């Protein structure tokens, strides 16, 4: 398959896959890998070219303990109810995200945990105030600054949507953005659920989160305008809070 990618970009993709990049070049490649379709194709081609080298590694015994630690972090969900095989599993994009959400919702409903897992996709935009009036969140997190001043509220609804509402105490440093993170559990890496650069309500993107639960940590860090280049918080966490069940 040929691509219209420039030789320089293709080289960057190759070196990214090879793993030799450092510093700014590496961050640039990570950005492109996240957003640039042509670059993603080039990366996939280089991965395919070099993948056979991974097969030369000597297998190491994989312990049951390691599996248990993985299983514990797949969320507390029980095995899902069987679903029909018709859903296309592939094409990434909003469509897939919606499907994943839908599956996840069914999955949690099946597990009888609807209320606890009001998670996933998020709605909320400027025009949703009317909706908000008739919807009651099942989970709420009040996020506090380091001086314990309320700076934002996260509402999660039973339909699997969630929103972040900034309060007066929320400060966004000039030229920076704030990135919202959900921390799935103890000792787990934060998962980005949204980036805010203005003080207005944000619909959170929960499709990478196994589910919001009571007493889950939500944190906000200061990041570059496009969000963290590494997928993990790179700036200081300035605001955080825990989710609680709304009564």
């Amino acid at each position, binding site marked *: 398959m040929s691509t219209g990618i420039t030789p320089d970009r293709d080289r960057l993709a190759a070196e990214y896959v090879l*793993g030799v990049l450092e510093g700014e070049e590496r961050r640039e490649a990570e950005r492109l890998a996240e957003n640039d379709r042509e670059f993603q194709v080039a990366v996939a081609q280089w991965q395919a070219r070099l*993948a056979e080298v991974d097969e030369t*590694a000597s297998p*190491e015994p994989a312990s049951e303990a390691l599996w248990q630690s993985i299983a514990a972090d797949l969320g507390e969900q029980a095995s899902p109810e069987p*679903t029909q095989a018709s859903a296309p599993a592939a094409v990434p994009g909003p469509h897939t995200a919606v499907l994943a959400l839908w599956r996840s919702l069914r999955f949690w409903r099946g597990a009888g945990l609807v209320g606890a897992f009001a998670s996933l996709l998020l709605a909320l935009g400027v025009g949703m105030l009317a909706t908000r009036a008739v919807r009651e969140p099942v989970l709420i997190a009040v996020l506090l600054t380091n001086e314990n001043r309320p700076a934002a509220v996260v509402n999660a609804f039973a339909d699997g949507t969630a929103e972040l509402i900034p309060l007066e105490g929320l400060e966004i440093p000039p030229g920076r953005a704030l990135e919202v993170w959900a921390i799935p559990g103890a000792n787990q890496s934060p998962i980005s659920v949204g980036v805010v650069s203005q003080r207005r309500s944000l619909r959170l993107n929960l499709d990478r989160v196994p589910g919001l639960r009571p007493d889950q940590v939500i944190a906000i860090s200061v990041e570059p305008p496009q969000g963290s280049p590494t997928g993990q918080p790179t700036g200081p966490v300035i605001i955080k809070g825990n989710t609680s069940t709304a009564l």
Partner: protein
Amino acid sequence: MTAVLGQEPSSAPDLQDALRRVARGDRLAVRVIYDAEAPRMLGVAMRLLRRRALAEEAVHDTFVQIWLKAASFDPSRGQARTWLYAILRNRALNILRDESRTDLVDDFGPMDLKAPGDDAETTVMRLSDSGALKRCLERLDPVRRRAILLAYVEGLSHGELAGRLDVPLGTAKSWIRRALLVLKECMA
């Protein structure tokens, strides 16, 4: 990669099918992938990270990502196994590069005491004779072949390669660059 997949014993699970099941929330399918691939993944991660605890961490995080991201796997863009190992390599390289971790730094001494048999030429020998990669790697000048394999297998950066091969940084970069061009053309 088609050739590689074709060499699998018929008892090997269909990873693409397993990923489809994971995308539907099937935890048992995660276990299927774990049983099939975790040992090799640990081996790959050990070559990159040297320490068992770090390798296990990389594999752990990889499976959590597989669980979360299975729906984004696109079979039209590559093999399931390649996708799985790309996540693993990415995670391991992040541990190697981004995280200033004393547990890595402390280990620089023992890192040099690597098994002598596990060098670049051994890696080439282990590649399948029928695959294009081996044939194409053998076309490279030995020192450039070694640079490519040290980078991919041990996760050395441009700078670390220059140190290991005792050449200026610019030389290491240009070896890698030219070797990649040869590989791309050869494997087209």
